[in-house]
């Protein structure tokens, strides 16, 4: 009990803060912060597996999250029949061509000696393949994009429940991680960081501009939901009764029946959105708990010990007969898959997919701040980091306003400096994150909850 005292204390404070927001701001805000905290926690767990367990630096988190979001679109949106008629065939042919190309390249790699000739041959095959695909698909892509451009203009998805996309998103991200890992994992740590960052930018560029697949910057809105809709909920009798029972003490005070009805209606509207958010919280909580159990088990398994050995001394681990390259690739894929899962969860919660919103600042660097602040190598720490940093990210504006008002209390309300500072409140969150990160790295380099390995 005492060993875990700091973990329990940290989580109690965190939950207390969220409840505090619920009481003083509103439960809606508190729950949406809580849900985003859970999603961030899943992302940090992915990054933590790579960085904390294996010491691999992955600045491409944004790309995996976006692929997860893409999976949500491709799984849940209904297929657009006209678009498939207009250009589906040649898209499928192009897909076959790509698969054929991959097999040819693999064949060459296996059966020919390494030489300049082979390298140029492979480059030639890839370039000519790309040109052939571009020429053959151009007209059908235009045809697809011209099908009802205001509402569809893309191939659509499979029309399955969106929950499937969580798994598919993880697989998408794992696939990308396999390619990236094969290409980049041999690089030194800081090169790897830059390479993954740039690859994720390429992924985003493709998602943003291939309108036939993703609708690009036109966004996909109104995705299916695993949770009930607020409007439907408000008409259900059981829900109205539930709200009435919860707020009976408040309602009993009101004497006139019409006033009571109006108050109840207001409460039902508020309650419905809280209820929907609670549904999401439940789903996300299940994911977080399952992942936590698995990652904790992995951390204390022989495999986890081997990963730490590789992290702490690659050469020694190699000398002991551990396949460092293979294990690095495996853990890179696992971590990225978790980030992809989180990306799908995020799009599921928002109900929309906006490729333009994927910024490295928000989806890569902020997640890294969470991992470092929380405590790399410790799953509880990583989750806590997700909670703390996201909470501060959202609540930075009120805190900054409060601080500005204190420091400028001597100034007139219309003073230029005060007005300017209050206008730039949204940017104080960057300042807070930066200073927080610098302080943690300097004075508590292992994070709030440091890695603690016990030999059992």
């Amino acid at each position, binding site marked *: 009990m005492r060993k875990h005292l700091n973990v329990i204390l940290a989580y109690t404070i965190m939950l207390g803060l969220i409840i505090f927001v619920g009481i003083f701001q509103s439960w809606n805000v508190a729950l949406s912060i809580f849900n985003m905290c859970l999603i961030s926690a899943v992302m940090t767990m992915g990054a933590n597996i790579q960085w904390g367990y294996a010491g691999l*630096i992955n600045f491409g988190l944004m790309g995996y999250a976006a692929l997860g979001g893409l999976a949500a679109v491709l799984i849940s949106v209904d297929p657009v029949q006209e678009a498939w008629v207009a250009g589906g065939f040649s898209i499928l042919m192009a897909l076959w061509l790509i698969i054929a190309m991959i097999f040819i390249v693999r064949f060459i790699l296996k059966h020919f000696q390494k030489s300049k000739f082979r*390298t140029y041959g492979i480059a030639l095959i890839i370039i000519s393949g790309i040109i052939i695909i571009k020429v053959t698909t*151009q007209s059908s892509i235009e045809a697809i994009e011209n099908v009802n451009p205001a509402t569809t203009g893309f191939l659509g998805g499979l029309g399955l429940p969106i929950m499937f996309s969580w798994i598919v998103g993880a697989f998408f991200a794992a696939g990308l991680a396999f390619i990236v890992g094969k*290409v*980049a994992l041999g*690089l030194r*740590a*800081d*090169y790897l*960081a*830059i*390479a993954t*960052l*740039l*690859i994720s*930018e*390429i992924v985003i*560029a*493709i998602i*943003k*501009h291939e309108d036939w697949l993703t609708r690009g910057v036109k966004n996909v809105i109104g995705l299916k939901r695993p949770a009930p809709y607020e409007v439907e909920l408000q008409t259900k009798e059981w829900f109205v009764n539930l709200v009435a029972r919860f707020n009976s003490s408040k309602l009993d005070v009101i004497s006139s029946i019409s006033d009571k009805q109006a108050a109840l209606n207001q409460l039902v509207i508020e309650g419905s959105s809280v209820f929907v958010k609670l549904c999401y919280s439940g789903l996300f909580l299940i994911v977080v708990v399952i992942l936590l159990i698995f990652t904790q088990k992995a951390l204390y398994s022989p495999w986890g010990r081997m990963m730490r050995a590789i992290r702490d001394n690659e050469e020694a681990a190699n000398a002991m007969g551990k396949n460092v390259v293979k294990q690095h690739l495996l853990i890179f894929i696992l971590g990225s898959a978790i980030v992809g899962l989180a990306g799908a969860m995020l799009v599921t919660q928002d109900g929309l997919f906006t490729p333009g919103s994927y910024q490295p*600042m928000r989806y890569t*660097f902020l997640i*890294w*701040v969470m991992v*470092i602040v929380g405590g790399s190598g410790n799953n509880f720490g990583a989750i806590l980091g997700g909670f703390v940093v996201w909470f501060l990210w959202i609540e930075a504006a009120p805190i900054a306003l409060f601080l500005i008002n204190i420091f400028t209390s001597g100034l007139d309300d219309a003073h230029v400096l005060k007005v300017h*500072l209050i*206008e*730039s409140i949204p*940017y*104080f*969150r*960057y*300042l807070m*994150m*930066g*200073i927080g*990160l*610098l302080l943690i*790295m*300097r004075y508590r*380099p292992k994070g709030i909850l440091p890695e603690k390995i016990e030999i059992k």
Partner: protein
Amino acid sequence: MDFLNAIILLLNYIFMPALAYGSQLALGAIFVTLIYGILRFANFATGDMMAFGTMFTILFTWYFQSIGISLGVLPTALLAIPFAIVLTIFYMLLVDKFVFKYYRTNKSPPVQLAMVSIGVMFVTQAIVRIIISPADRRFYDGERFIIKAGEFKEMTGLNEGLAIKSSQVLTIFVTIVLVSTLFWFLNKTKTGKSMRAYSDNEDLALLSGIDPKRVVMITWIIAGILATIGGALYGLDKSFKPFTYFNNMLPIFAAAIVGGIGNPFGAFLGGYVIAFSEIFLTYAYKKFFMYILPASMEPESLVQLLSTDYKFAVSFSILIIVLLYRPNGIFKGKVL
């Protein structure tokens, strides 16, 4: 005649913009490479430090404009740059003293320093946005064109016009002067040589009595000059927006690595490699082929290899190919 027209077309739409953009990237890439070579970490705050310098250039430009000082045909910003450089160097030395120095003396691994630079990136970004707000700003004043497209057509009687923007010429001129001074400094002066020695082998340099504090300080001073001038030139040529500067960090990194990280000359050329390939691969060559091919063979499509949306993706792909086949970069990295 058609052939001349085609050449002018390429000069106007590919060569001049790429040369100017390449110079701006080159300055940033030398900044990255110097920090990497001497302080031994990848500085993720590059783009934001450039934005920081540009912000002060703009503030001083506004100040000079308000008191009525101007340089006539030249932009007022030229007058403001020295003041901005001083403030940027001051900021960088301050950051170094309070942030990077601790990790340097503790001999932390480069990855940790890179992480710390992310913290600096957040803080710098916040400072820039709080002081000048994230809006898009143009601060070029003075004569905009040296030759206008219309005048050029009249002068030569060609169909295609060649417009030479003064900001482009200014960029190229300043870059040449600055980079040649820098190379002279690194190769000929005693201080420059000590910096190269420090970059090659830290322990040996310390043994031969080189003062590491001085080397680090001079590195930050050069970095401040490069960041401010590079950023200000980019802002003069295009416009100043903190977000674009943050994004420019990525092609700058690409340029530094393609040229061989730690090698300033490589970084200089890397900037042009990135800029030219970005513009070459995304330019629509339809008009060019209309000039040089006979009328019967004229292309129907735009003859564009990649859409301009993939501009950044081009430079990143080049970087990845280079990392795969020549991890040291085109010009062997890590010599300085």
